[in-house]
């Protein structure tokens, strides 16, 4: 069982740079919805200051959290399944920005053989302005138990 005392724990806020090269790589793998996602001139013609961040890209930057709350909670990555992900967007983010991520564990709940952990991360921009809120729900299988997830 995960100690429910972890509800409310916060990672120290950390920063991540939005890099053009990584955005281009992401769009190359997933498929770019339009030229403004990979081409700086096209981005500027579309009114963007730089390459815009695709809707789900911030999730990967949030994963770079240097304080590993899951490990602290005694959760191994190979027992984890991602069951829900949400984003609320406050303003678009662009290459060249340094964003700040402030994660907090907001819920831990057991349901059957699974435990559900909810992590909410507020992402803010260079001047502290809200950029997006990330909402992640994972299911954790009990240690030592194999088999299918949900």
């Amino acid at each position: 069982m995960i100690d429910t005392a972890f509800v409310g724990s916060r990672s120290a806020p950390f920063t991540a740079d939005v890099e053009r090269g990584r955005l281009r790589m992401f769009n190359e793998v997933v498929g770019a919805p339009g030229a403004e996602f990979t081409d700086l001139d096209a981005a500027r013609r579309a009114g963007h200051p730089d390459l815009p961040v695709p809707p789900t890209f911030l999730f990967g930057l949030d994963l770079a959290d240097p304080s590993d709350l899951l490990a602290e909670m005694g959760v191994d990555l190979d027992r984890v399944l991602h069951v829900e992900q949400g984003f609320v967007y406050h303003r678009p983010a662009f290459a060249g920005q340094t964003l700040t991520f402030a994660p907090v564990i907001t819920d831990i709940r057991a349901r059957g053989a699974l435990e559900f952990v909810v992590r909410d991360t507020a992402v803010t921009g260079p001047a502290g302005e809200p950029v997006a809120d990330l909402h992640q729900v994972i299911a954790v299988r009990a240690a030592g138990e194999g088999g299918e997830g949900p």
Partner: protein
Amino acid sequence: MSVFPLASAEVGTELPELPGVRVTRTLLALFAGASGDHNPIHIDSDAARAAGLDDVIAHGMLSMALLGRLLTTWVPVQDLLSFKVRFSAPTPVHAVLRCTARVTAIDEDEERAGPGCRSPYGSRTAWSPSAARPSYGCRGGAVSGVPSTDEQVAQQHDYIGELDRSLIDLVVRRSEAAAELASLCRRLGSPGVELARENAVLRLYHSALGRSGTSLALLLLGLGRPESRPAGEEKAHK
């Protein structure tokens, strides 16, 4: 970029389906690197088996990223207000993801901006993106909005404010660089100000911005001379 008639979309309108995407091991390896999700159950079949799976499974976020691509092919990315999915079951390697999205609601009432949404919005559109066939993948919802004119004006004010802050920062850096150059020249015993260089700067600004460019260049050159830099300007703009 798009020819899809978003403005005339109605409840039930389907976005053009993305070409099916086959989940190959190569795609999973590339997505791990590009997204930053390095969980080995997506890329290493030994690790997947050790975790009790038959083989590697796709990142849930791969299907969500594809749905994000589908939505932003037709909806400007800055108009997306929210996007969420539930991952129904692990997507096995070799599966083909079919990504669709349908309009589920259109709300013209800007008083009823949903929780967490940027507001006010002239109109908002709810979507039901799905990368789920037949039984795996994910499905969820998204909301996009067309900003009201007021909101567009406010956004443009913000943007111009950002540009001004960047310009001030650049002007300060230019002045500092010019002061550094002058002190280098003094150490070498050469004159700190070279008229030929200053003329080249004036011509550059004139060719880019016309007569106002010349005036701007004169001001910038003046700011670059140590005696004309205001005291205590460091970071005062922050």
